[in-house]
């Protein structure tokens, strides 16, 4: 049989919705920014269809020039075609294998493009770009690429995106004027703060960056944003050197961590005086955080803050025990209860009983260390939840 017929047969075998690799590459010419609108739209619909199947995705990710065209559409096209292109990238980005090809594709720098669109106040593509960034940041290579872009952005003057701009975009009400919520900047920050350099930037005392996250620890309108913000805060709590600053008046982190764990139960006047301002006189309609994973993250963050003696004393002084006592009566999840009990144990012991100033400096015996390593390796094997549109 001739090549042509072979190709036809192959096509027929793969079914109606698959094309040969050559055909996919041909698509790229119909995806140019200046292509006629209806042709462009049809091509994009086809691409979106392909992103729905594993085979289609594999083919698209192998077609670097198509990816390049999609990026160019996102960069330059202000019509609905740009939006469709961003959706296509989003569908692709949800899969682990997509990171490398998407970042490596020719055309505009992927991370930079997505970051610029995400913080562009009048862009309708902003939410899709945030989600792509969030997906890419779940893997080390993607996270590093995004961070590099942000770090270099700090050195440049205007237009470039910095971490500060990301945080402002996330935390300023109605930052995006055309209806995009930008909630997925939350998980992006959470992933970025796994890098020590990113944490260091977030904890800069000469700027107002970290503090902007605090009002969102009980943001009811979006679970995604709330989870991301609390994840970012929790990661930053690993920096022991910043603990006194975090617990001090310039940030005052602890009450915001305790707020989602606080319920409507009234305290008597004497106890009420001991509580920080944010937790006093709670309305009787106050409810606790509904998501158990978030509750656990909050407890872990507060536990981290109890690493050193002076920090522990500060946590005690701010009435943490009063809040956790009532929370413990309410909580039903075993793992969360255990975390709570460990934390309360630290708080109710006196400093003499603890004896050690920095709990993180404690030596772990070898067999215990081995067991802990095995457990954390097993936890890493479990698949992470997919963030696709």
């Amino acid at each position, binding site marked *: 049989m001739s090549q042509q017929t072979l190709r036809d047969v192959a096509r027929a075998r793969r079914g109606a919705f698959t094309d040969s690799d050559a055909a996919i590459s041909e698509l790229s010419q119909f995806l140019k920014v200046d292509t006629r609108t209806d042709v462009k739209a049809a091509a994009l619909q086809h691409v979106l269809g392909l992103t729905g199947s594993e085979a289609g995705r594999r083919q698209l990710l192998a077609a670097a020039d198509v990816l390049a065209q999609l990026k160019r559409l996102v960069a330059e096209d202000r019509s609905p075609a740009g939006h469709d292109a961003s959706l296509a990238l989003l569908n692709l980005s949800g899969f682990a294998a997509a990171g490398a090809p998407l970042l490596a594709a020719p055309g505009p720098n992927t991370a930079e493009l997505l970051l610029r669109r995400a913080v562009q106040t009048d862009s309708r593509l902003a939410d899709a770009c945030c989600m792509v960034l969030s997906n890419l940041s779940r893997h080390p290579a993607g996270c590093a690429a995004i961070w590099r872009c942000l770090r270099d952005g700090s050195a440049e003057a205007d237009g470039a995106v910095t971490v500060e701009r990301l945080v*402002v975009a996330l935390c300023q009400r109605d930052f995006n004027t055309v209806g995009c919520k930008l909630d997925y900047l939350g998980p992006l920050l959470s992933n970025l703060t796994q890098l020590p350099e990113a944490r260091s930037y977030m904890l800069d005392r000469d*700027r*107002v960056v970290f*503090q902007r996250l605090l009002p969102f620890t009980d943001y009811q309108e979006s679970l995604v944003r709330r989870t991301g913000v609390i994840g970012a805060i929790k990661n930053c709590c690993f920096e022991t050197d910043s603990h006194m600053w975090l617990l001090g008046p310039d940030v005052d982190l602890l009450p915001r961590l305790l707020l989602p764990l606080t319920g409507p139960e009234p305290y008597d006047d004497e106890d009420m005086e001991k509580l920080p*301002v*944010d937790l*006093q*006189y709670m309305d009787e309609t106050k409810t606790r955080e509904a998501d158990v994973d978030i509750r656990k993250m909050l407890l872990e963050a507060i536990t981290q803050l109890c690493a050193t003696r002076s920090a522990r004393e500060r946590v005690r002084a701010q009435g943490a025990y009063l809040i956790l006592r009532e929370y413990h009566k309410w909580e039903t999840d075993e793992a969360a209860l255990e975390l709570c009990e460990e934390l309360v144990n630290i708080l109710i012991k006196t400093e003499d009983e603890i004896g050690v100033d920095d709990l993180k400096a404690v030596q772990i015996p070898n067999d215990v260390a081995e067991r802990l390593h095995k457990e954390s390796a097993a936890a890493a094997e479990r698949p992470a939840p997919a963030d696709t549109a």
Partner: protein
Amino acid sequence: MADQPHQPKVMTDAERDKLAKTLDEELDQFIEGLQKSQYKDGWKEETWEKEMQEHPFFRSKPFEDGEELPPLIQGLQALKYDPSLHTEEELAFTYKEDGNLCFKVKKYKHAVLNYTEGLRKRHPNIELITQLLTNRAAANFHLGNFRSSLRDCERAVRLTPGHMKAILRAVQCCTKLGRSAEALSWCDRGLAVDSTHAELVRLHHAATAQQRVEERNRRQAALKERKQKAADDRLLAALAERGVSVLSEEGKPVSGAAVRPELLVPQVPGLETGVQLTDSGDLSWPLMFLYPEHSQSDLVRAALDTDPISGHLEAMFGADGGGSPEWDTAGTYRPDRLEVYYEYEDGLETRVVRVRTDSRIRDVLADKRYVVKGGVPGFIVLPRDSPFRTVFLGRYQVDER
């Protein structure tokens, strides 16, 4: 005579003195011989200090408000501000400088006036106008006019976005006005221009802390209001249950749901607490006993509504209680010889009702005819043995229960 070079004569001291004296005398004669002229237009001996103060060069203190300016100074002023002698731009700058000078000596009202005049020139120099607005905002800030100051800051920043002085002043104004959310938004505008501006960062922390305190105060006030409302509701329910009627603001008796807490506030001077619901669920009323015969009265601050009236009469007039008051000269006010009445309006006429002294206060108040006025139930007390009683009751229609 031989031709000798002229040798200056060497004088002796005596000869020198004589020469000096001769020259002095010659000078005196010359002066005497000159035409004498008057010293006019100069400062007089009596008034030189005042004259000195009025001279622009020698003036030592600033002018008070309303003080009339001396002519020399008025003249200089006219020159300085004469529009025919200066361009609009020069005048605007002059007003700005004058304003700055006033600001330096803390004459903020004058500074504001100067800056306003400068702005009125409407000279289109953006930098100048921004400075005039910012400076006027500063002067108004020091005068306590925070709202005007804030408006000028807004205008300044609209003209020159990122003008840090105006942004900082705006934050201060919002803080003084107690608007911490606005203060924070101004801080953010400033930080967008200069993200590590130390003063803005500090102000941001302060405004955030202030905002948290304000939110706590709101919650506290809301809680207090809810508690008060709950207490009021319980009291009103107790009153409704007992069928108590109260006089409304329009002068009509109301009961049940129409009763409001404001109608229960005691109108007796010096009495702070009106009717209360006790923890055991009883009502405690202040009571007024009136003795029209002697124009006297007694105020009981808190009487349980389950008390019989006789108990209080006993307490006030009984041998074990207050005994006989000094105004009771005839000795007729003995607890067992007293009758109790109350007034009520029946259509157009006023009637009185006789109350059995062993009645409970609660039962008297429950009577449809009894209306509590001014938050304090009142009772008229008349001694049975007194002629006054007959006269008094003769004026009314009496309901014997």
